[in-house]
């Protein structure tokens, strides 16, 4: 064997060995470097004593110790490493990339935080008049979400035509929200304001998938992102709540009222910044930590199924129908949203190749219960609508109900087929991702078309 070839062989073996060691969580990149230095010194000494590369390598690795035992020793000394760290990774390749990304994310977050204060320069202070309040109600998502969309546009390197397509929904939203002559305090204004964030979220999604919105895998990734984003946002909000509580408390202790500071700066700017930071954190950690949304789904699917079953049994037992109050329709809409959410996140985390299991059966029971309960509610509500006529609120709630019911009914059929092994799991996943544009279209209809149809009332 020529000298170069055997030297190359040694490099290959060392590379393999590195890959093995790298899989151990307890041994980090600098430890690996240190161990490699040891290994190479040992190999060099053994070579001098007359062994060939292959033998020298094998003996050196053996002397280093069995990898399991070694990584146990490292873990005992560095137990913190078993808890995967998120933002503070100090070493390894791509460090400067990560710094650059953190910089971009933080500056965009600051941008969003300042953007919510810009209207104040034009006399629309947050603590001010009803005019200002209605302005913020309509425009808050337009002030914040462009920064999140911008982050993904930057991260994914969107080209000019995709950038224009990304800007279009924001422009349409801004025009509609500020040029439509909404009747003050009318339902169409509130409905549009509530649906705009959802409509714009799909625009963020367009940025997230880098323009490839037709790709179903990418759509599922966006669903996963949305769930994780929400969880991170809530966690940051909890931390922010603690911060504000203490701010009030310690300033109160010296007789200084800090409430204005919280209301006009920390709360709005913090929430806007948190929306961007949450997006960045989810993006940064995606491969590092187990996703939370599927874990919560796993916990709550059985509990919600049980609750709905108990509800149905109680209703049959007592024979009482659903009392149609104002909030009932919205309440049942939210219930369906929740069930669709549970379904979506358990689908998003499931291995599509796995055989049908008890959890799939449980999903089907949950979906059927939700459908039954909703059918009863829908019946009661339709009776009310036929008696009292249509209003924007009722049409919006009814439309959403129908959209969700169709999704659940489709899911039920596909789950049943899957459980009887007539099809694989893929059609279920496909059904959910194919259905996503329906939500987007509906949200945009409520924002753009409802005000026109109902005369901005």
């Amino acid at each position, binding site marked *: 064997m020529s000298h170069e070839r055997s030297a190359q062989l040694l490099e290959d073996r060392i590379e393999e060995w590195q890959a093995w060691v790298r899989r151990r969580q307890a041994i980090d990149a600098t430890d690996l470097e240190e161990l490699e*230095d*040891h290994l190479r010194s040992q190999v060099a000494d053994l070579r001098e004593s007359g062994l060939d590369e292959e033998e020298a390598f094998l003996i050196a690795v053996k002397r280093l110790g069995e990898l399991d035992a070694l990584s146990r*020793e490292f873990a005992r*000394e560095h137990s913190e490493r078993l808890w995967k760290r998120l933002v503070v990774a100090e070493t390894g390749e791509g460090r400067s990339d990560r710094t650059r990304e953190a910089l971009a994310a933080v500056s965009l977050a600051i941008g969003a935080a300042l953007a919510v204060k810009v209207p104040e320069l034009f006399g629309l202070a947050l603590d001010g008049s009803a005019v200002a309040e209605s302005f913020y109600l309509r425009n808050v998502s337009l002030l914040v979400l462009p920064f999140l969309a911008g982050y993904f546009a930057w991260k994914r390197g969107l080209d000019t035509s995709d950038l224009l397509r990304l800007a279009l929904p924001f422009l349409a939203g801004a025009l509609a929200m500020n040029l439509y002559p909404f009747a003050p305090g009318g339902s169409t204004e509130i409905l549009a304001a509530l649906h705009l964030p959802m409509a714009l979220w799909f625009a963020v999604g367009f940025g997230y998938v880098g323009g490839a919105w037709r790709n179903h895998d990418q759509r599922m990734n966006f669903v996963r992102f949305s769930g994780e984003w929400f969880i991170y946002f809530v966690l940051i909000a909890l931390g922010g709540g603690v911060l504000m509580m203490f701010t009030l408390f310690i300033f109160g202790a010296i007789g200084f009222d800090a409430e204005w500071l919280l209301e006009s700066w920390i709360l709005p700017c913090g929430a806007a910044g948190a929306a961007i930071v949450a997006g960045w954190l989810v993006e940064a950690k995606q491969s590092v930590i187990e996703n939370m949304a599927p874990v919560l789904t796993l916990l709550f699917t059985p509990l919600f199924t049980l609750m709905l079953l108990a509800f149905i049994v109680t209703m049959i037992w007592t024979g009482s129908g659903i009392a149609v109050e104002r909030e009932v329709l919205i309440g049942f809409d939210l219930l369906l949203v929740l069930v669709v959410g549970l379904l979506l996140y358990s689908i998003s985390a499931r291995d599509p190749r796995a055989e049908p299991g008890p959890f799939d059966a449980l999903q089907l029971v949950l979906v059927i219960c939700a459908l039954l309960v909703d059918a009863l509610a829908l019946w009661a509500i339709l009776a009310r609508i036929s008696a009292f006529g249509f209003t924007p609120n009722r049409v919006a709630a009814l439309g959403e109900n129908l959209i969700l019911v169709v999704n659940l009914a489709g899911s039920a059929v596909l789950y049943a087929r899957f459980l009887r092994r007539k099809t694989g799991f893929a059609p279920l996943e496909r059904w959910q991702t194919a259905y996503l544009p329906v939500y987007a279209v509906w949200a945009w209809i409520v924002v753009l078309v409802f005000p026109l149809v109902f005369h901005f009332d």
Partner: protein
Amino acid sequence: MDIGKDLVAASATPLVLAILSEGESYGYAIIKRVDELSRGELQWTDGMLYPVLHRLERNGLVEATWGRSESGRRRKYYRITDDGSAELAIQQQQWRVVNETLRSTPFMSFQLAPQGI
């Protein structure tokens, strides 16, 4: 000679500190020095040295810097600190007591007799 795990673990700290008190060194050289001092009688699993060094570093008994080897590879060098020297003095004291006690027992003096089993 096969020395029990516990004894190796207990002796590792004073041994490493003592070797480092001769001057700055790095992992592989420390192992070689142990081998040399014990005339090959004390065999460690090489990799186990590093968690020991990291523990000493965390406790401030040694400090580490990254330098270069003769061939230009990155190498982590360890140096004993003042705290480390103080700790070494204490441990030497303790080992002397243990050693003397063992020697004075009739059982050990029998075992230690040079008979070359």
